[in-house]
């Protein structure tokens, strides 16, 4: 009985301390959400308070109007357009490439694989300048193309992640499909692709996040306000020199986090398992 009590006490201490920790960790996020509902006076006078004196929705309405006559609807549309196309392209091409490395024996496979792994550690700063000049020569500046087209060529991180998954599938599957008259591509589409769904979803989520949050790419390549993505628009919207409506800035910040947040809630199982098993960075 005494031992039971002690266990209970330990358990309470454990959960309470985690909740305290969680409060400190989530304070900034809660504060952001609270601020998005406050009026300007409330924002500065009760800066730290998590409960607005009066819940205002006007920040969202005003923020949504955007700037320069262009509303956030346009920015969200641009972001979704870029993110959806490049995520689908990136995941599919990475899966095909991973299949090639994992299941087909061809001359030079090892060599190219080492090349690919090496690029994982490459700082992108080294390639960004020539890439910029290349896209300039192609007349792609101020278009979505520099942000979308490279996605069609796979991403080493995802290739590696999917490959790890393919290695886990028994070879007998391929053998029996071959006996049934399946070619190499038939095996890929009918056998492998359906089986690696969890790896595809994990890659898809990360691709979505990285593309959604990408700031450097849009900053470099997009000039027209009409073409801005959400992240670039938010930066311009929140420039310390230009901001007058703080509440609206917070409101749009909250909105910009929503897609990532929703995807996280829906797919969190795949995400947590994906990172734990593959060691993928977030």
């Amino acid at each position: 009985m005494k031992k039971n009590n002690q266990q209970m006490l330990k358990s309470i201490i454990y959960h309470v301390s985690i909740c305290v920790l969680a409060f400190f960790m989530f304070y900034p996020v809660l504060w952001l959400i609270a601020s998005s509902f406050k009026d300007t006076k409330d924002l500065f006078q009760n800066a730290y308070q998590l409960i607005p004196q009066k819940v205002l929705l006007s920040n969202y309405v005003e923020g949504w109007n955007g700037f320069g006559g262009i509303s956030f609807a346009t920015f969200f549309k641009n972001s979704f357009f870029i993110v959806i196309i490049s995520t689908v392209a990136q995941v599919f091409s990475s899966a095909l490439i991973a299949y090639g490395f994992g299941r087909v024996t061809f001359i030079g496979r090892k060599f190219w694989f080492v090349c690919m792994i090496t690029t994982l550690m490459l700082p992108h700063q080294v390639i960004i300048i020539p890439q910029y000049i290349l896209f300039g020569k192609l007349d792609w500046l101020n278009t979505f193309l520099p942000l979308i087209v490279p996605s069609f060529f796979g991403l080493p991180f995802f290739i590696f992640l999917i490959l790890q998954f393919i290695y886990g599938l028994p070879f007998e599957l391929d053998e029996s499909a071959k006996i049934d008259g399946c070619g190499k591509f038939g095996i890929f589409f009918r056998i492998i692709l359906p089986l690696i769904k969890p790896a595809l979803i994990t890659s898809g989520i990360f691709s979505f996040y990285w593309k959604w949050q990408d700031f450097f790419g849009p900053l470099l390549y997009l000039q027209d306000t009409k073409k801005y993505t959400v992240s670039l628009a938010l930066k311009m919207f929140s420039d310390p020199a230009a901001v007058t409506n703080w509440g609206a800035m917070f409101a749009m910040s909250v909105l910009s986090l929503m897609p990532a947040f929703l995807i996280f809630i829906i797919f969190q199982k795949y995400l947590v398992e994906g990172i734990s098993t593959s060691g993928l960075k977030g």
Partner: protein
Amino acid sequence: MTFKRKKVRDHENLVGYICIAPWLIGFFIFTLMPILTSFYFSFTKYDVISMPEWHGLANYKDIFLTDARFLKSLLVTFKYVFLSVPFRLAFALFVAVLFAQKRKMVGLYRTLFYIPSIIGGSVAVAVMWRQLFGVEGALNAILIKLGLLDNPSSWIGNPKTALWTLIILAAWQFGSPMLIFLAGLKQIPKSFYEAASIDGANRFQQFWRITIPSLTPVIFFNFIMQTISGFMTFTQSYIITEGGPFDSTLLYAQYLFEKAFRFYKMGYGSALAWILLLIIAVFTSLIFKSSSYWVFYESKEN
């Protein structure tokens, strides 16, 4: 027979190259060619409008001998990387150990604590951070309320504290290494701990003598990945502090961006990029080299 086998092999080769073709083409166009061009550019003067002009080692000479901001940005970046990475990893390990216990709700906690990492790289969080630590931000309001501070001062505007706001933001995003640590913790055999507690080792001793040594391969992996990405940090400093005040948060990536894309000094920028590549390569290989002293692989011990 041999003819047929050769045909099969040719077919396999063809299929293999078709499969990896997207990567191969992308590798040549978007990675290999740019790396080589950027190496060439680093020896030129190039402003995009006119043709690159051969300059020999002039860029490198300027960088190492006369560029004070280069040195400053290098120092800032080192400080940032060598403070933020250990903080992030220590915090990740601490939380992972808490969540490795078999208790109720742990699955939920694990998911919850990953959330900052999901949103951490976004502009929205950078904007939030800037306000949080600003003059009229929540931190000041709390400190004044608690009587710990008399006059509000900007944590971002002060050269002494500005970099720390970025380091705290980096530590806040400990989710990925935490999940990797958790996976590592699960693989430590329970029998190790049972044997240790029979021998009378307390929790603390068990942590230092069993948990840490068993985790060294995972710590090694996390350390490498986080160090590399630490050197490339850009968005946060660009939005929160803009490198200021007085260049106290001028991270290397931002300095490079300024040189290349604000002043269009592409040759100079390329040289900076190559120096960054070398620095990362040196650090990565140093960590790899050092690993034989502190990383323990189970299979090796036999």
